[in-house]
C-alpha cells in the first residue's frame, strides 16, 4: 500500500510526445547543422575558396571525419558526427548546434546535411517500401535489442524508454526477451567481428516483417572507434537497416522518434530534414488510435507471420 501511494507522489510525469512536442525534447544539443548564412557566402564563392587551401582545412576540424568540404559546398554527415562540437568551437560562422532530437531518417544519405537534391529522390521510395512492410504491425510492436559493440551509453538511453517519463508501452511498444516475438531490432555499437554471427542469428530468428534500426553514430558508421582491426564501419554492412538514428549516444527522444518512424507512426514530415515547426500535430494524428496493443491485433499479426514463413 505504501508503495502504491509513493507511485502516485509526483502525479503524471509522462511526456505527451509524440502527440505534443515536449519541452525537454529540444532543450539540448541534438545535431550539428551548417549555418544557412554561410551557405550563401559559399555559393557565391567568396571567402570559402580561400579557406579550402588554408591549414587547418575545414574537414580536418572533425575528429571522426563527418565534415565533407569541397569546392562549393560544405556538408556534415550526421551518421559520422559524434557531436563533440569541435567544429562549432572553431568555426561558429559555418557550423552550429541544432537542438532538435528528431534526427532519425529512413535514408542513410539524408543524414548528410544540407542534403543534395539528387539524394532526396530516393526518400519517397524508401518511405513507401517501409510503409508497405510495416502495414501489418501498426498497433503493437515488440522490440529486441542487440549490442554489437557499443560503449554502453546507448543501452542506458534505450532502457530509459521504459522509465515513467517516456513509458513507451503507452504507445504499444514493448521490449521482448526473445527474437521470435520481435518485430523490430534495435542495434547499437560498431559491429564488432565477434558480434556479426550472434547479430545475424538474432535477425534470422525474427519473424517477418522485420525492421532494423541502427541506434547511434557507432552503429551507423563506426564513429570514432572505426577504423580498427576488430570493428566494422557500422552495422549497415551486416544487416539491411531501415532507420538510422544518429547521436553519440542518441537521447531517448531520438531513439523513440526512430522507432516511431520505423513503424510508420509518424508522417514523413517529422523526419530529419523535413522538420518544420508545427508539423507535429498533423503528423501524429494516427498515434491517437494506437494505444494499448489489442490482442486481436497481435493475433492478426502472428497469423500473418505464419503465412509469411
Amino acid at each position, binding site marked *: 500500500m505504501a508503495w502504491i501511494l509513493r507511485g502516485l507522489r509526483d502525479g503524471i510525469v509522462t511526456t505527451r510526445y509524440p502527440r505534443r512536442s515536449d519541452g525537454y525534447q529540444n532543450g539540448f544539443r541534438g545535431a550539428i547543422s551548417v549555418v544557412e548564412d554561410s551557405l550563401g557566402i559559399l555559393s557565391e564563392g567568396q571567402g570559402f575558396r580561400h579557406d579550402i587551401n588554408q591549414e587547418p582545412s575545414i574537414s580536418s576540424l572533425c575528429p571522426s571525419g563527418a565534415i565533407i568540404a569541397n569546392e562549393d559546398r560544405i556538408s556534415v554527415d550526421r551518421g559520422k558526427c559524434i557531436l563533440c562540437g569541435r567544429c562549432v568551437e572553431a568555426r561558429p560562422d559555418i557550423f552550429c548546434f541544432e537542438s532538435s532530437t528528431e534526427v532519425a531518417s529512413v535514408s542513410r544519405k539524408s543524414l548528410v546535411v544540407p542534403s543534395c537534391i539528387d539524394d532526396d529522390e530516393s526518400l519517397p521510395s524508401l518511405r513507401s517500401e517501409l510503409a508497405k512492410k510495416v502495414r501489418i504491425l501498426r498497433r503493437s510492436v515488440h522490440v529486441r535489442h542487440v549490442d554489437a559493440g557499443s560503449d*554502453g*551509453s546507448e543501452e*542506458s538511453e534505450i532502457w530509459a524508454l521504459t522509465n515513467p517519463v517516456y513509458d513507451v508501452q503507452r504507445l504499444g511498444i514493448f521490449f521482448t526477451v526473445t527474437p521470435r516475438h520481435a518485430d523490430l531490432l534495435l542495434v547499437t555499437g560498431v559491429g564488432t567481428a565477434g558480434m556479426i554471427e550472434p547479430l545475424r542469428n*538474432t535477425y534470422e530468428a525474427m519473424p517477418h516483417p522485420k525492421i532494423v534500426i541502427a541506434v547511434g553514430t557507432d552503429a551507423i558508421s563506426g564513429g570514432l572507434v572505426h577504423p580498427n582491426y576488430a570493428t566494422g564501419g557500422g552495422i549497415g554492412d551486416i544487416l539491411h537497416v531501415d532507420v538510422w538514428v544518429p547521436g553519440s549516444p542518441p537521447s531517448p527522444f531520438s531513439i523513440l522518434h526512430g522507432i516511431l518512424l520505423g513503424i510508420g507512426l509518424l508522417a514523413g514530415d517529422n523526419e530529419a530534414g523535413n522538420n518544420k515547426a508545427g508539423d507535429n500535430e498533423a503528423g501524429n494524428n494516427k498515434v491517437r488510435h494506437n494505444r494499448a496493443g489489442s490482442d486481436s491485433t497481435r493475433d492478426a499479426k502472428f497469423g500473418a507471420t505464419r503465412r509469411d514463413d
Partner: protein
Amino acid sequence: MKSGLVVVVEIVPDEFALDVARRVNDGNRFAGLFATSKRDGSTLLLALICDERLMTMVQTRLAPGEHSYPALTPLVPAASWYEREIHDLFGLEPVGHPRLDSLVLPLVQGEELRPRPGNGLTDLGALTPDSSPLLGHVAGEGVFTIPYGPVRSGVFESIEYLVETVGEDIVHLRSRVYHKHRGIERRFEDLGVNEGVLLAERVEGTVSIAHAMAYSQAVESMTSTELPKSALLVRVLHAELERIVNHLDTIIRHTEGASQAVGYARMSLHKERIMRLRSRICGHRFGRGVVVPGGVSGPLSCDAVEVLRDIEAINRSLTSDLVALMTTPSFLDRLRGTGILSDELVAAHGGLGPLARASGLEQDVRRVRPYGAYTFLDPKQISPPTTGDALARQWVRLEEIDQSFALIVEVLAQIKELPHGPWRVEIPVVDGLGLSWVEAPQGELLYLIEIESGRLVRVKPRCPSFHNLSLLPAAFNGDIFTDFVFIEASFGFSVAGVSG
C-alpha cells in the same frame, strides 16, 4: 612523470614475477599488469603495485623475438586476466599460467597477427575471432550447462556466460567477453592529445567523465602546469553526478530483478531527472565534451543556484524512496546473503570500488591518493556494513550517493564564488609517460599514456570492471539460478570497459 607518488623499478624478465610477488606478499595491492610493444620489436611489461599512497611500476623488457616469460599468475592469482589479455593482444606466453584461455581476442590464425598496441606499425586488416562454443568444466550425473548471452533477455551489453548447474544450484560459472572487443587501445595510437580525450569518453560510455578526467590527468601529469580551481570544481561536479547515476543504475537493476514495479519506476524517474540536470548543465546527458586536457570546456550553462535547488529537491525525494526501499522485506530478502565475497579473497585480489568496500577494504582513491579538487574537498567517511553480500554492496552505493550529494552541494557553493573561470589553461604537450588515477563509480580507474612527438603512441585504460569481474565466479557459493541477476547487477560492471 612529475608526480612524486610514482616510482619505477627496472627488473630482468626472469626475476619479474618473483619481484612482483614479493611486493604483493609484503601486503601491497596488485593494481594491474600491462604490456606495450616497442618499435624495435621489444615488449615492455609493466606491473603496478600500490601501497597506501605510493604507486610502484615494476617493469621488464622482453627482447625482440622473445615471446615468453615466467608467468605471474601462479604467484599472484589476481594477474590471471591480465596475462590472458596480454596473451591475446601481444601473443606473449606466460610460462606456467594455469589456464591460458582466450579472453578478449580469441584467434585461430598465427600469433604474428596479434594487434600489439604500442608499436603503431603493423597493419592488421580485420581479425576474425574464433567463436567456437565454450565447453563446460564440470562433469557428473545431472550436470547440464546453460549458455547465456551474448544476446540476452533485456537490454544488456554483450557478454556470454556458461552456467553449469545441477538443477537449481550454480555449480560453476564461466564467462567470455570477447564479443564486443573493439580494439580501442589500438585506435588511440597516433591521435592528437586533444582528440584522444574524445575516444577516452567512449571506452566506457556510462562513465565518460571518469575516463576523460583520468585521461586528462595523465596528460597533465607530464607537465607542472597548475589547473584553475574553477575547472577542478566543475570536473568534480560532473564526476559526482556520474557516480550517483551509475549507482542508481545498479539499484534500478535490483528493483527490476526483484519485481518492485513501483520501486523501479521511482528509481528510474530519479535517474532521468539527474540525466536531464546534467544535460542542462553542459548540453550532454553523459557530460561528454566537458573535461578536456587543461581544464573544462566552459562554465555551467545554467546558474549554480538553480542547479543547487534542483539537486536538493532530487536528493530529498530520492532519499525518501531509498529509505522505503531499504525497509521493504521482499526486496532485501533477495540481496541478503546473496553472492558473498569473502574479505580474504577480495583483499588478496586487490578488489576495487564499492565491491571492495562491501568486503571491508577501504580503497577510495579520492581519499588515499587525492587528485584534482579532492585535494581540498573532503569526501566524508562512510561506514557501510562489510558482510560482502549483494546487500552490503547496495549499502555502500547508498552511502556513496549520500556522500556525492554532500560533495555536490559543497562544490556548487564554491563555484558560486568563482563564476567567471578561468576554465582552461593551455597544456604544453611534452613527450613521456603519464600515469593517473580516478575513483570511477566502479572503483579505481587507471590511465597509462605515452606521448611521442606530440602524438599518442600508447594509451592503456585499466577499467575497474576488468579487475573486479574476474571475481564474479567466486561470488557463487551455493547461490541458485534466480540469484544470478542480483549478483551480476551488484558487481555493477560495464562490459565495454572489460572487453576493451
